[in-house]
């Protein structure tokens, strides 16, 4: 009898304890460390914490409402109207209005917008264009079109409507406080401190010593992180690493651009530099999204490259690489590949504009191939509506784009983070960014 009672009590206690662990707690400060700038696009960790877009992708990649609760197109995608969510306020208390949204969107893309005009009509934000805009709702979910209250802010940072608001930036630490009146509801953590420009090795040491709760795990170090038994979360391969080529000077010659595409050794990038993470690709859209990616050959063909280059004297081309050390290394490797085919390349700092070749990351978000393709083209500065829906049409379209050799896809990479033992419910959004609003700290009572 006593034995049964004791067992029952132990089971009940264990059940209670299990229940306590599953229920998130409010409060506490989340310590995040990153190697880059928290505001940089497209993966700046602070952007999605402070700002919201009119639309967003849910965890499954489906487009869902955010600051806009509904949208509809007219005139065969030449006109869109978005109805704003009511009762939303910026961090400084300013009400979200269609005029503020229109002003924010107008300043976000300047003169190179996917639309010709954006205006506020009552609670509606209306976009019009002479060209069809079939994927505008998906484009508006990208981080470039996050809504900010222009002309305000703390320390030069404009107020947003996101779950956290900026409270300060001292000694390399960006401080964010929970937005009590967030339209999504209050986040669990009271505050987030983001230590910026911290080398990955130091981040990992801080994670191990408990000084950091969430740290970055670059794709090429995912395997190493797992070997070190870090608690790693990673996205699918949603970042396209591609070489963007200019079309001026020597690169105006399509054969030279084709020679460059043929000379790049993708397998070395994938196998060694990115440590077999993600997948090798020669297409803009990943295989899981398009289903035809395997049709684009990824093998290096040095003979073809040399044949295409022929006797063309390209001089010395310049190349820059965005991002971390792995991207720099990948760029150097590509330069080495190109040198083998007789094309001399000189590395220039990442900040240098108008480099002949730029190794860039493109974000592939959502699960709509046409929207994702248009987003990539938009990021590459090529304004072109992608309205094709069938795989065959999309393949043809993408082939046409790639045969211009302005963008040479190389590798699709995942994004990864590691979290400490006290962090719960850390998830990634569809674009690979951290969803810290849903994370909580376990040791908070």
């Amino acid at each position, binding site marked *: 009898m006593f034995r049964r009672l004791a067992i029952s009590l132990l089971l009940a206690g264990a059940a209670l304890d299990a229940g306590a662990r599953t229920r998130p707690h409010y409060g506490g400060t989340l310590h995040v460390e990153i190697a880059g700038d928290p505001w940089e696009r497209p993966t700046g960790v602070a952007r999605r914490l402070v700002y919201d877009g009119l639309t967003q992708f849910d965890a499954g990649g489906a487009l869902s409402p955010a600051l806009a609760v509904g949208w509809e197109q007219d005139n065969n995608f030449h006109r869109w109207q978005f109805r704003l969510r009511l009762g939303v306020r910026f961090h400084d208390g300013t009400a979200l209005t269609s005029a503020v949204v229109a002003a924010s969107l107008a300043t976000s893309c300047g003169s190179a917008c996917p639309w010709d005009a954006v205006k506020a009509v009552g609670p509606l934000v209306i976009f019009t264009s002479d060209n069809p805009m079939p994927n505008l709702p998906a484009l508006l979910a990208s981080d470039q079109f996050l809504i900010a209250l222009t002309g305000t802010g703390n320390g030069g940072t404009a107020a947003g409507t996101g779950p956290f608001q900026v409270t300060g930036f001292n000694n390399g630490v960006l401080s964010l406080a929970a937005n009590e009146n967030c339209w999504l509801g209050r986040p669990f953590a009271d505050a987030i401190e983001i230590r910026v420009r911290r080398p990955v090795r130091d981040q990992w040491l801080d994670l191990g010593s408990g000084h950091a709760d969430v740290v970055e795990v670059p794709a090429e170090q995912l395997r190493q992180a797992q070997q070190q038994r870090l608690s790693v979360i990673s996205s699918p391969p949603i970042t396209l690493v591609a070489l963007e080529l200019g079309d001026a000077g020597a690169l105006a010659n399509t054969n030279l651009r084709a020679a460059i595409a043929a000379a790049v050794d993708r397998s070395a990038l994938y196998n060694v530099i990115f440590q077999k993470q993600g997948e090798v690709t020669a297409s803009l859209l990943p295989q899981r999204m398009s289903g035809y990616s395997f049709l684009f050959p990824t093998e290096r063909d040095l003979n073809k490259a040399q044949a295409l280059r022929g006797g063309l004297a390209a001089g010395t081309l310049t190349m820059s690489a965005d991002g971390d050390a792995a991207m720099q*290394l990948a760029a150097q490797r590509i330069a080495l590949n190109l040198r083998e085919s007789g094309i*001399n390349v000189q590395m220039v700092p990442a900040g240098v504009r108008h480099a002949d070749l730029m190794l860039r990351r493109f974000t592939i978000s959502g699960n709509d191939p046409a929207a994702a393709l248009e987003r990539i083209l938009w990021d590459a500065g090529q304004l072109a509506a992608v309205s094709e829906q069938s795989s065959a049409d999309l393949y043809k379209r993408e082939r046409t784009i790639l045969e211009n050799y302005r963008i040479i896809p190389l590798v699709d990479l995942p994004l990864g983070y590691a979290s400490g033992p006290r962090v719960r419910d850390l998830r990634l959004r569809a674009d690979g960014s951290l969803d810290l609003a849903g994370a909580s700290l376990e040791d908070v009572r």
Partner: protein
Amino acid sequence: MSLRQKLLLLFSLTVAAAVAAVAWTVLLRIRQVFEQRDRDETALFVNQFQREFQHRSADVAAAIDRIAGQERVRNMAFELVQSGDAAPFLSEAQTLAQDARLDFLEVVGPDGNIVSSAQWPARFGYPEPAVREATRNAFLKREELADGSTALGLFAVQTVRGSEPAVKLIGGVRMDQAFLADLPVVPGMQVGLYTETNSSGGDAQDGGTFAEKHFVGPEGTMPGGAKYAGLIKAARGSGHDASGILYMTPDRADSVAATAIPLKNSAGGVLAVLTVAISRGGLVAEQQQVKATAYGVAAGGILLAIIFSLWIAARVSRPVEELARAAEEVAGGSWDARVPVRGRDEVSVLARSFNHMTEQLENQRERLVQSERVAAWRELARRLAHELKNPLFPLQLTVENLARARLLPPAEFDEVFNESTQTLSMEIGNLKKIIGRFSDFSKMPKPELERIDAKDAIARVRNLYAAAAEDGPRIEVVTKLENAAMPLMADPELLHRALSNLVLNAKDAMPEGGTVTISARNAGSNVEIRVSDTGQGMTPEECERLFTPYYTTKQHGTGLGLAIVQSVVADHAGTISVESREGQGATFVISLPRAKG
């Protein structure tokens, strides 16, 4: 140049030349000694430096050896060999190089391809041929870098212990500014590294070109790098050490004794040139100090020599100078000049002879004066007698006539008496006149000088004798005067008397008539007055004796006229001379000092 100056110059030059020769020999020897010391010191430092360089090579080899023995590296090699997957070790070389403080490190797999590269991480998968040919010793290699540049490095190769097939490590340190800065150098030593590549990848036989930008020292571009160009080119061209002294500035102290050491790869090609330069500042300063001392001693010697020469020259030349001075005095008429007689040398004999000679001269002059005085008295007496004898003879005849006339009748006596008294009066007058002339000559007055113009004095004489000339033979008096003023400080009466005498003489020389020309002109600082006649002229003998008192060429002259003229001219600090040829007249030339102002 005086004898003393000549002697001084001769002695000084002789002594100075001797001192200079000694100083030059000493300085030459000093320079040789210092240069030898310089070479020895440089060789010592270069040897020290080369040993240090070899130590660095050994350090590199040891560092690679230590890495090859690490457990971590051995595990890596094992996994690499077992799995054949090089990807996990991509950044291994960077970590190992950082820990070992190496600039270059590459892990090379069994296939000879790079697994991991610290200096060029993107180079994985490419072959590294250097691991095949290298030995355990460190060697030089030019390494390509990601930015397209190359860097010179001191490399070593080692096989990871226990790896089969062999996994190798090749690594080293960059030979650059930092490498040089890390080398121990003694004060005053300066090291540099020239690392220019050329198209052939090796050394050019002629040393190739020199670009200063490729020549670095521990603190950046080598200061005065261009000065090393010759040595570096020589070392590159020959493949052997080249040494020399380089003057960095015109200041000799700012020079270095430099040695260029070619650094070669395993094939013997020159990849770079290391320069070791030792400052010669201290050495030159020491040398200059010794030189300054030598110069000081030499200068002092020369100065002493000059002083000694002065004393010698004075001692030798003083008796000669005294002799010369005394001789000049004798020549000037001071026959009583004597020179002191010192010692018993040849100069003292000469001095004694000189003194004896002047004594003899003085005695002879005294005797000559006495004899001349007697002759003069005799001449005077003769003249006086001659002059007095002429009037005395008529006087005697007249007195005798008068005495005889006493016997005549009174009427005739009266006539004779009257004639005799007239004759007596006339002859007595002649006697007075003769005596007056002698008296005048003996009482020449002292001139009272005043400023006059020579033209006025000449005009006065011309006016006087132009009127008087009408009475006698036809004599024309002509004057030729310069327009410019001819001022004189003169006694106008005495000058008039002198000129009048000359004009009278000229008239006397032309009994048949003729022309007397009086001319005057400025001649430098003098005024020259010329009185010319067109008479018969004089012989040279007559001209010589013309101004001798009591000498005359006239039948009834006293011989005192021209003597008076000469006396007047002499009293006015002037000179008088005569120019004459027989049958062509005579010209008396008076030259008087021109008055100043």
